């Protein structure tokens, strides 16, 4: 059952764009499969479990021994992917009627088989499998499943399947390991919650709601504390005798990408903060931090040119003491005292912003135009640190967006529910020489009616097609809202927008009157000095 069942799950996950459908597939996997198969499958999907037992060249040799070279060449040419060509062209030896291996058998054999014997073992397995399962096996042993299932998505699926809150699962997640037998036993009510002991686990973050104009009137200034909302990524630092970890907001372990932060974590505490690239006292734009994200390892040059730091917001645990039940004011005092005492390198405390009325605060917010600041955070002085997005305890009050009038240039179809709509728009502004240059791409901000209207317009005004992308006649002006403009060498226009979205369709505005590139460049905040 197992490897072919896993292959079917993989194939469906690869082809399924929708998050809900992915969750349904995962729930079914957890419900149907026995231990340890379901846990091994989970670990393989989230790439907690990876193998390098076989290199593509080895797979190639195994198949070459059985395949006519000309037919191989034509097939590989046609299919274009080595693993897939092998999976499809493989011809099981006649007379093989062994059952397909279990996932656990594959994992165990890969760990114990001497390298020289791996090709024969692999060939034996391939003989028992159909094409889909062969592809799954090859991807598995060469370490490249790439199915787009994050650990976060997997935890949500576990929560939905078991009825246990996802925050609770997150707290134990980094304390359990494949094949997660203790986790599954707990989630199916057969064992107590696994105790992570001193393992550095993730504690779900406290999150904020956006503050709307209508909410402001109800706020009394004296109940609230304000901090700048820095434009980096929210992180949790956890360090102690059991180890150190740096987690992203969603609980992904990003330690490997930021060794300098790990090295500075000479303490026993759990902290909440913003990860930033900082040069001296100055916070670099988000684009600089982006260079450091999603890396498995990091070069010395990266460390030197894009040095990371953490601006601390909160302290959750000090030594063995859980501070989360304390009110914000008390935690803040503990954070400042802790920072004064421990004085960790590469970390400072995000200052409180003093204000005596919300009007005064609004003026401060509007005045803050530094690229490194997204706006303000408002936190209730008496609020404990609670997981998730509890309304009324924390607000994020982003500064008003900047806007630019830009011309629709290209449109692309969306995914999932939007796959029949042209919903992703690339827009541009006029350069001095009269050429339109793209400055960004947006796929949100419009209503369903506007989307339907744009879709029709795009189909009727296509002037060129490049695969899934249509170039359209110059005829639509968007008012594009964005949080910041930054210089970028990656774009032809030399500028990149932060969080662009369609604010309005300016049906009233002729394209010639859209904005010019100079206007956008004037909004850039990281001009080289």
């Amino acid at each position, binding site marked *: 059952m197992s490897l072919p069942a896993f292959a*079917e799950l993989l194939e*469906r996950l*690869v*082809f*399924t*764009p929708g998050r809900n*459908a992915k969750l*349904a*597939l995962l729930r*079914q996997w957890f419900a149907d499969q026995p231990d340890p198969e379901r846990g091994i499958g989970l670990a393989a999907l989230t790439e907690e479990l990876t193998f390098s037992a076989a290199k593509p060249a080895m797979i190639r040799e195994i198949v070459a021994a059985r*395949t*006519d070279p*000309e*037919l191989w060449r*034509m*097939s590989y040419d*046609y*299919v*274009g*992917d080595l693993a*897939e*060509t092998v999976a*499809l*062209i493989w*011809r099981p030896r006649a007379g093989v009627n062994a059952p397909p291996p279990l996932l656990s058998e594959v994992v165990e054999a890969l760990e114990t088989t001497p390298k020289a014997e791996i090709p024969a073992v692999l060939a034996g397995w391939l003989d028992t499998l*159909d*094409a889909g399962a062969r592809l799954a096996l090859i991807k598995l042993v060469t370490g490249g499943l790439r199915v787009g299932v994050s650990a976060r998505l997997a935890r949500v699926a576990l929560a939905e399947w078991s009825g246990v809150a996802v925050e609770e699962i997150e707290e134990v997640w980094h304390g359990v390991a494949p094949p997660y037998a203790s986790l599954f036993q707990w989630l199916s009510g057969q064992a107590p919650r696994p105790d992570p002991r001193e393992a550095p686990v993730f504690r779900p973050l406290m999150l904020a709601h956006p503050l709307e104009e209508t909410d402001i009137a109800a706020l009394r200034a004296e109940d609230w504390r304000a901090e700048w909302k820095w434009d980096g990524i929210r992180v949790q630092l956890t360090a102690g005798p059991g180890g150190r970890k740096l987690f992203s907001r969603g609980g992904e372990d990003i330690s490997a990408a930021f060794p300098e932060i790990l090295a500075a974590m000479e303490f026993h505490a759990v902290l909440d903060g913003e990860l930033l690239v900082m040069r001296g006292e100055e916070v670099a734009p988000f684009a600089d931090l982006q260079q450091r994200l999603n890396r498995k390892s990091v070069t010395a040059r990266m460390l030197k040119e894009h040095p990371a730091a953490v601006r601390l917001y909160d302290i959750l645990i000090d030594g063995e003491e859980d501070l989360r039940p304390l009110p914000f004011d008390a935690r803040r005092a503990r954070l400042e005292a802790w920072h004064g005492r421990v004085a960790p390198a590469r970390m400072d405390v995000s200052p409180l912003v003093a204000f005596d009325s919300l009007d005064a605060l609004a003026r401060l917010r509007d005045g803050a135009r530094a690229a490194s600041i997204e706006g303000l955070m408002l936190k209730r002085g008496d609020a404990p640190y609670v997981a998730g997005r509890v309304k009324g305890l924390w607000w994020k009050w982003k500064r008003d967006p900047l806007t630019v009038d830009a011309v629709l240039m290209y449109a692309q*179809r969306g995914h999932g*529910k939007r*796959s*029949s709509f042209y919903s992703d728009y690339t827009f541009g502004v006029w350069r001095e020489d009269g050429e339109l240059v793209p400055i960004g791409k947006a796929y949100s901000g419009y209503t369903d009616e506007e989307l339907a209207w744009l879709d029709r317009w795009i189909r009727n005004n296509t002037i060129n*097609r490049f695969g*899934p992308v249509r170039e359209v006649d110059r005829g639509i002006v968007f008012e594009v809202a964005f949080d910041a403009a930054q210089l970028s060498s990656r774009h032809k226009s030399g500028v990149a927008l932060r969080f662009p979205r369609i604010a309005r369709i300016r049906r009233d505005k002729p394209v010639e009157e859209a904005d010019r590139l100079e206007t956008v460049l004037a909004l850039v905040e990281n001009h080289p000095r």
Partner: protein
Amino acid sequence: MAAPHPQDWLRVTPAGLFCEPGGFFIDPTRAVDRAVISHGHSDHARPGHAHVLATRETLAIMTARMGEGRAGATQQALRCGDALDVNGVRVWLRPAGHVLGSAQVCMEWRGSRAVVSGDYKRQADPTATGFEVEPCDLFVTEATFALPVFRHPPPEAEMARLLRSVALFPERTHVVGCYSLGKCQRLIAMLRQAGWDRPIHLHGAHQALCRTYEELGVPLGPLRPATVAKKDELKGAIVLAPPGAVADRWARRLAEPVVAVASGWMRVRQRAKQGGVELPLVISDHADWDELLATCTEVQAPEVWVTHGREDALIHALAQRGIKGRALHLVGLGEEEEDIPAEEPAA
């Protein structure tokens, strides 16, 4: 006297294969005086011929698709197994297993026998009579899936995957892109065999030929137009539509559709991903690699001509088996069979 070589009496012309002594074409790509038609797909059956010879089913399908009068000014039905003499050429038909009415065109002239397969498959199909081997001196084959990466899995297993998906997503519509002649009716019949007795909803383009099939004695069970159905009625339903419609505007009327496509091309992931397919079903009405090689061997012909498809791989593999291969590069064949969701439906 030795029998003539088939190339002495069967010629490749711009209009297609021409049987010189018989004075007729096989599946000509332009209007001719006399045509023998292997099956009703539009790349093989073109309108406007003066005289058409084919199975009763193929003639009915042609008439349904082209309209009265355009499917041959005069039509002559020939039953599989019966033979005719056309100017000294013996002509008979044998089932090809491709779609309802599909037949191989068998010809013998002065002791030299040629068989033109048309399109064919060897897998079972409840809507088409199974392929029969006719030994011959020359076999003319298609090669749509002539690469060793194309091995069609058992169609029942693919159908079971579809039904498992329907069970997993009972709130969603499963819309299966499939060609309107043959694949559509085969899928319906297979669903019925698998025990699916609920109404199956059809895109408008699929309705006429389903009626033709039923008139020809192929029962398809309860069918409903998808176009007028309410969204709620389509929850948990199976809808069949042309591949061009499944991922485009037409599909917006469906309830959170799971887009499936049933085609041999679905075997290759990249092809499936291109069309935005969520559930690729490898179900084909063409011979796969193994079937092509097996068939070319079983007919015992020393020479095989390849009309269209991946002829290079097939000819290479035939040479290794001592069979002489020749690529005909017939223009215009294989065009109707491109059943990947298109960027836009072709009207």
